[in-house]
């Protein structure tokens, strides 16, 4: 298993580094926040990213994508994490695209895939129904109704739900809550009758939506993949999302750490740079170790996804759990080591702390993934 990048991936990473640094620095997120932007991202940025092929990294070339794979996607996400760049990259390109490419029927793929790759169609995945990630606990129902289905229930914490053209909705079609069997996915137009979308501005200056389905009728061809058999596909796509957000968290952690190191070298107290004090040196060295371990876990998970390896689930949980623990540590230490100015809105380090906690919750926190890893390992 390769844990280092090939030339193509290094080039992709370098151009992403340059793009996010030049076009979407942390200050651009602050601007969006301060002007109360209702998208939470700048469509011009997304158009530029699509132009470079990033919207279609996980879309096959035949459908207009660039097909760079998860390792390639991870590099773009890591660099986007460094500047906390807000865009549909996560919900549309990392999750929606491979889900539709894997499970969508020909008609659905034609409807969305090339439009996703060109940046003209946004997707959002609706799974969670409570403040905690518990995909098997999904209770929204889809009941057969003539040729179609009727959806009833609610979804929460739907990332990009407020801007998505289509929502991918997980519903129970048979069996009991908690069963992997009996779950199905539907592709739902945002304008469909009976669907209410209510966005909330989250602590990281991005939006997550609550979706309420009141007798929403969809046609039979809204079903994605097989009836009652969504779980295997969904789980694989979720693992891609977990590895991907772990890559983004790695970038955020690395950046917050480097900013903190620079501050430790610059800030003078007691006539010396505070980075000369052993109490801070040791904590910095510990963060370095955690970042290195996280990087290895992230690369292993991305690599396994590209290979379609059997241990994807274990490695994705490893990557997400490590990224959560690392980033909780680094984001807290970053604010602490910046001292008083770390508490001010004027200093950017606080943005990293706020984003970190949202990233930690997305598709399972460290505890969720430790439990899953232990179960997969048989203890």
């Amino acid at each position: 298993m390769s844990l280092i990048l090939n030339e193509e991936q290094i080039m992709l990473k370098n151009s992403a580094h340059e793009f996010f640094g030049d076009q979407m620095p942390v200050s651009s997120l602050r601007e969006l926040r301060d002007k109360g932007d209702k998208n939470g991202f700048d469509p011009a940025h997304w158009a530029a990213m699509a132009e470079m092929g990033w919207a279609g990294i996980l879309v096959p070339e035949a459908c207009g994508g660039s097909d760079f794979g998860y390792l390639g996607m991870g590099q773009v996400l890591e660099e986007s994490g460094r500047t906390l760049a807000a865009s549909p990259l996560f919900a549309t390109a990392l999750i929606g695209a491979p889900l539709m490419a894997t499970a969508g029927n020909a008609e659905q793929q034609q409807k969305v895939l090339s439009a996703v790759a060109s940046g003209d169609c946004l997707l959002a995945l609706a799974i969670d129904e409570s403040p905690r990630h518990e995909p098997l606990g999904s209770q929204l129902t889809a009941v057969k109704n003539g040729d179609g289905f009727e959806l009833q229930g609610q979804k929460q914490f739907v990332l990009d739900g407020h801007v998505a053209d289509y929502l991918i909705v997980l519903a129970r079609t048979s069996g009991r809550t908690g069963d992997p069997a009996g779950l199905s996915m539907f592709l739902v137009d945002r304008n469909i009758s009976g669907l209410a979308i209510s966005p909330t501005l989250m602590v990281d200056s991005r939006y997550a939506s609550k979706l309420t389905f009141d007798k929403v009728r969809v046609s039979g061809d809204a079903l994605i993949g097989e009836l009652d058999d969504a779980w295997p596909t969904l789980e694989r796509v979720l693992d891609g999302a977990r590895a991907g957000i772990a890559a983004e968290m790695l970038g955020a952690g690395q950046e917050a750490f480097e900013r903190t190191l620079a501050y430790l070298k610059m800030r003078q107290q007691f006539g010396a740079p505070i980075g000369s004090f052993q109490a801070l040196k040791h904590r910095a060295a510990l963060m370095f170790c955690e970042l290195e371990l996280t990087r290895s876990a992230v690369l292993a998970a991305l690599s396994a996804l590209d290979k379609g390896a059997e241990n994807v689930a274990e490695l994705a949980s490893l990557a997400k759990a490590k990224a959560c623990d690392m980033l909780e540590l680094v984001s807290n230490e970053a604010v602490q080591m910046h001292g008083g100015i770390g508490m001010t809105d004027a200093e950017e380090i606080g943005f990293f702390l706020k984003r970190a906690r949202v990233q930690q919750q997305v598709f399972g926190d460290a505890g969720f993934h430790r439990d899953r890893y232990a179960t997969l390992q048989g203890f």
Partner: protein
Amino acid sequence: MSTLETFRLETRAWLEENCPQSMRTPMPEDERVWGGRNATFKNPDSQVWLERMVDRGWTVPTWPTEYGGGGLSKDQATILGEEMSRLGCRTPLFSFGISMLGPVMLKYGNPTQQAEHLPKIARGEIRWCQGYSEPGAGSDLASLQTRAEDRGDHYLINGQKVWTSYANHADWIFCLVRTDTSVKHDGISFVLFDMTSPGVETRPITLISGASVFCETFFTDVEVPKGNLVGELNSGWTIAKELLQHERGMIAQIGRAIGGNVPGVEAIAKKYLGTADGRIGDAGLRDDIARHVMNDRAFALTIRRAGQESESGTANGGASSMFKYFGTEQNKAKFELILKAAGAAALAWEGDDYEPEEITLCRTWLRSKGNSIEGGTSEVQLNVIAKRVLGLPD
């Protein structure tokens, strides 16, 4: 078929034919082979296995054949390692000569020294010990005081070393001595001498685990020929630091090897806490154990990544301190989890009411405490990372 694949098949066939069956089982600590003039082989197969591996040069697969090595490329050595683990082959020879002295001798030794010492290391004929720490020079190793005075054709050595692992069983010592008292780091030299030289005395130290693997070592007017100086006079610190990197890598591995004689912490927890639906009975401890084994996995992946980076020339250095720090802290944490899981069964010191494996748990737990002290404490490793990798100021 690629040459490497051919090599793999040939290696596999050779190992299957030549590795005795009992050498394919987990190794009890008392069956470890350390070689030397007074080598002991508790299991006779160990000797057969060692001799066969020595004949192929595979105790030191990447060393040149002229020094008793196998002359293998890095890739071939990796394949040999993989094939040995596949069969469960034991390490044929444990040796500070191989893991610590050899690499620096290959770089700094003169041709006479290399020809004299390296083949004997490869064949396990001479057992080495390391004379580094002193009572007053632990973490601040460069403050060492053991003197080597120039007496014309030889050096006269006086002083004391401590924590000399297995000094009482060693045939030779590689030793740091002070050859200039007016400067600190630049007054240290690296010398080799025979432990049977007149004036050498060793006293084993009993540890908290009850074992006595370390010694105090005293030198009183020991005469060492000048030809036994390695590298330039007063440039021993450079060699010493490089050797420490090899040592740190080894301790991180030994930590894991020590753990290798003990079942996984998950298995121990299942045995003593029971399971519910296949899960360890205590949810809190299960979470702690999951965190621990996941860190182990991420650590193993990091070692692998460092190997790939080093082969592709993209390594960033500073890795050995991180490995020493993390590997040893993980090993200590593992035994603390085992103690929590096994309860009183891991606290038995001696007696018949507990299994020998349980008494081993207790002793090994105590031994693991030394992992983060020997070869540079965890605190020193963090200092090294902060300075060399992160560039934080003094």
